[in-house]
């Protein structure tokens, strides 16, 4: 592979390199907890007072606006939990609160996460009218047995219906799959992935199943009742994923995210390019820069406690700490190297106040784990990406 003239390096965004400013809103409720999920999600059988939460979101948005100062928003993301359980009016109210706080140009990416089980045509239309222009569907698998294993409430037929409806309703659509399931062979996964690409629009998120502490799967795994593919098998599945998606025109632009060039998630790019983002709602994280100082914010995770906190004092922030240069440099590095476009080395140097260790960089270069691009960028090669965490640990020293 030559280092010069990499056409796939060029993203369609005119603001290449500009990390942008994203707004994330967390809807912390689900119809049921999935056994692999360690996200901040809660089940409320007695229903949820959405109006009260909307008021809470609006108050916290105003508060975050105070912290961030005036900014131009480049993307909005409604994640969860299951945001598609929100009423369209709730979504509309949240989006208008954001537009009231910051400058929100027309046509920016506005994504909503949706579960196939909670899809209704009428709701989708409502979200679309409220301003959502991209949905991300939690499909997770294309066979019913594995969907049941993953604790999903939908079946394959329901997923198909949701995909079709989403493609009809929204200009942009993505869906998630989870692979490296128990006993999954490379052949079976490749076939499922090929099928998925057939249904895909221009974006897919493909995650390896990981056993997270505190989940039901963690307990089963520890007790030996759940066997996931070993490291070698997981590597083969990962490699097959890269090959299959690249061959079908959906190459990875990030470790687990695949898109046709130009169809990348603008919002998630902000995270990986280490831009600022406001985190609204229970358990949301933010990064906000004020007068050259970067702050990390975290809010109360428990939904009702968060709400009471917001109602009492305007925000649910439990922690707001300034990141020192070393911490910022670490975050920039570990996020940036996840991207196919790589890390802006000059920016890293100006954040860190030093250069990368030349001996380590040279070693990783010679071993073929990283490569230099002409425009002061450093990125992982495919053999570096599969051991990214080790590469980052090596460079971070």
């Amino acid at each position, binding site marked *: 592979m030559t280092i010069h003239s990499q056409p796939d390096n060029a993203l369609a965004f005119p603001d290449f390199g500009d990390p942008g400013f994203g707004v*994330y809103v967390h809807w912390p409720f689900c119809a049921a907890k999935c056994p692999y999920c360690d996200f901040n999600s809660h089940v409320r059988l007695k229903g949820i007072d959405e109006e009260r939460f909307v008021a809470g979101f609006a108050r916290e948005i105003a508060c975050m606006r105070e912290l961030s100062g005036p900014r131009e928003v480049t993307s909005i993301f409604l994640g969860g939990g299951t945001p598609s359980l929100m009423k369209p009016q709730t979504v509309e109210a949240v989006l208008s609160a954001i537009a009231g706080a910051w400058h929100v140009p027309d046509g920016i990416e506005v994504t909503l996460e949706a579960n196939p089980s909670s899809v209704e045509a009428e709701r989708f239309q409502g979200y679309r009218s409220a301003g959502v222009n991209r949905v991300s569907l939690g499909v997770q698998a294309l066979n019913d047995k594995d969907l049941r294993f993953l604790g999903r409430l939908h079946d394959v037929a329901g997923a198909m219906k949701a995909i079709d409806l989403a493609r009809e309703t929204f200009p942009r659509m993505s869906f998630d799959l989870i692979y490296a399931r128990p006993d999954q062979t490379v052949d079976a996964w490749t076939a499922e992935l090929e099928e998925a690409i057939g249904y895909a629009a221009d974006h897919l998120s493909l995650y390896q199943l990981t056993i997270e502490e505190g989940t039901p799967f963690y307990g089963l795994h520890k007790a030996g009742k759940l066997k996931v593919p070993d490291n*070698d098998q997981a590597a083969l599945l990962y490699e097959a994923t890269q090959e299959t998606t690249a061959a079908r025109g959906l190459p990875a632009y990030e470790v687990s995210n695949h898109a046709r060039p130009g169809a990348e998630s603008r919002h998630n790019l902000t995270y990986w390019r280490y831009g600022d983002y406001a985190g609204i709602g229970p358990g949301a994280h933010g990064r906000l820069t004020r007068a050259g100082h970067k702050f990390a914010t975290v809010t109360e995770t428990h939904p009702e406690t968060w709400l009471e906190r917001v109602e009492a004092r305007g925000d649910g922030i439990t922690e707001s700490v300034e990141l020192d240069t070393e911490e910022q440099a*670490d975050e920039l590095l570990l996020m940036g190297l996840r991207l196919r476009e790589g890390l802006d080395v000059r920016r890293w140097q100006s954040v860190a106040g030093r250069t990368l260790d030349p001996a380590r960089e040279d070693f990783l270069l010679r071993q073929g784990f990283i490569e230099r691009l002409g425009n002061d960028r450093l990125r992982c090669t495919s053999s570096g990406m599969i051991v990214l965490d080790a590469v980052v640990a090596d460079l971070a020293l």
Partner: protein
Amino acid sequence: MDTPLSHIRNFSIVAHIDHGKSTLADRLIQMTGSLEERDMKDQILDAMDIERERGITIKANTVRLEYDASDGEHYVLNLIDTPGHVDFSYEVARSLSACEGSLLVVDASQGVEAQTLANLYAALDADHEIVPVLNKVDLPAAEPERIKEQIEEVIGLDASDALEISAKTGVGVPAVLEAIVKRLPPPAGGSREEPLKALLVDSWYDTYLGVVVLVRVIDGTLKKGQTIRMMGTEATYRVDKVGVITPRMVEVENLQPGEIGFLMAAIKEVADTRVGDTITDDKRPTATMLPGFKPAQPVVFCGLFPVDAGDFEALRDAVGRLRLNDASFSYETESSAALGFGFRCGFLGLLHLEIVQERLSREFDLDLIATAPSVVYGMTMRDGSEIELHNPADMPEVMKIEEIREPWIRATILTPDEHLGPILKLCQDRRGVQADMSYVGNRAMLVYDLPLNEVVFDFYDRLKSISRGYASFDYQITEYRASDLVKMSILVNGEPVDALSMLVHRAAAEKRGRDMCERLKDLIPKHMFKIPIQAAIGGTVIARETISALRKDVTSKCYGGDATRKRKLLEKQKAGKKRMRQFGKVDIPQEAFIAALKMGDE
């Protein structure tokens, strides 16, 4: 002090570890009223934390007991507590030389063990009268009659009048005090009119008092204000204080023949005092010196390096301060290509090494990397010169060496006979030569000649594990023997790791090399690349293992909410890496240096 010689008894207690020596000492102190009840804490004589925790005695300690015997007379009993462990046999010998008799304490259920023998022989060497004491007779498993037979059979000591006691409950202890008076001899000879002659038994550094010297007066009188001369070092000091230890330090007017006590005299360092030296009056010196002792020779060496190179000065300070109180510990600066600056340290044995390491990390809060322990090799070079090799990394070119010699030990092992097979195999595997084997009931006593370098790593651990803790072991260094030794280097990713090189017997090299490579394979974490691990003699690779490359190590999901958690993980990784050492781009955890040397199941 005016106690006639006939009313003084100087004695020691010799025992195997855990047979109750310290408990008996406590009980004797308590029963003679030397300490108020409220001052009693278990094992008074084991002053250091480490001594108390491990149930061992490292430094000799002494206590003076005032005893009113059943004959109506008042006696002064000086107990010198001796270290029980083989590493400190040198200290045992000199402590014993200040006494005339010993209590031989044997656990009434476990019976005679290896250290019982070693310490008893030391006491007999010092011409001691021996009173056998069977301890723990209150335990259900106690078999005093069988153990008495065993003592007579193994040691050849008349055990018919052995005392049966429980130091724990106090049963039988009064009889021990009576036996000390009746059966142990008073100090021989000694005249107050003669010029001062005293034995320097021990010395230690006390943070508040400075150097304290423990003495046994032979002739004359030692008193405050006197100018004394150390006959060996020829240094003179003015005595600031003399006193006895009860175990509180109590100042007295003077110390007279037969008495044991301390003196302080503005001595700066323990190293200024030579144990075994003769102390006399500067103006009126004695004509004859006491025979003295050979200085303790370190037999095991290892490198100690700070994990953080910035701690080197702190380590220098710490070893210096330890040395103040432990003249048998030696050190000199060493620099290693891999580990940076540190110290090559000499120890009396493995336990001594462990204790020093532990004290450095505990008392001085230092993170250390210890390299492979090594023995001292003797070498005759082709040009006729003689070299002492303390560090395998300094091994001269093979072409220049005429002969290499290594220290051998005579080891005594006592074990229940069901473990005999594996123990014989262990000794055989370690190049042992059997010198004797005998049985007492169902216990076997093995005597083996072994090269010390085969024992120095993990012999004792292995022995304990294959005998489920029942075998006991003791040794003494006997001689240096010529041997076919080669230097084995370990290469990690093609780079020699000096801290892992060692001298091994040619016949054992291949197996040792294979073991080392296999162990390192498990100890070194996977890297992004394949890591060859090789053992080599000269340019020849004799064993090889490969650590396969890390196949996959990438976090699948990482979004805005994950940045903090991932950064904290990275910070932890960075801190972990600081605790490792890099060789040929390979990070080796510091624990690996010692762990690699401990051989697995054989």
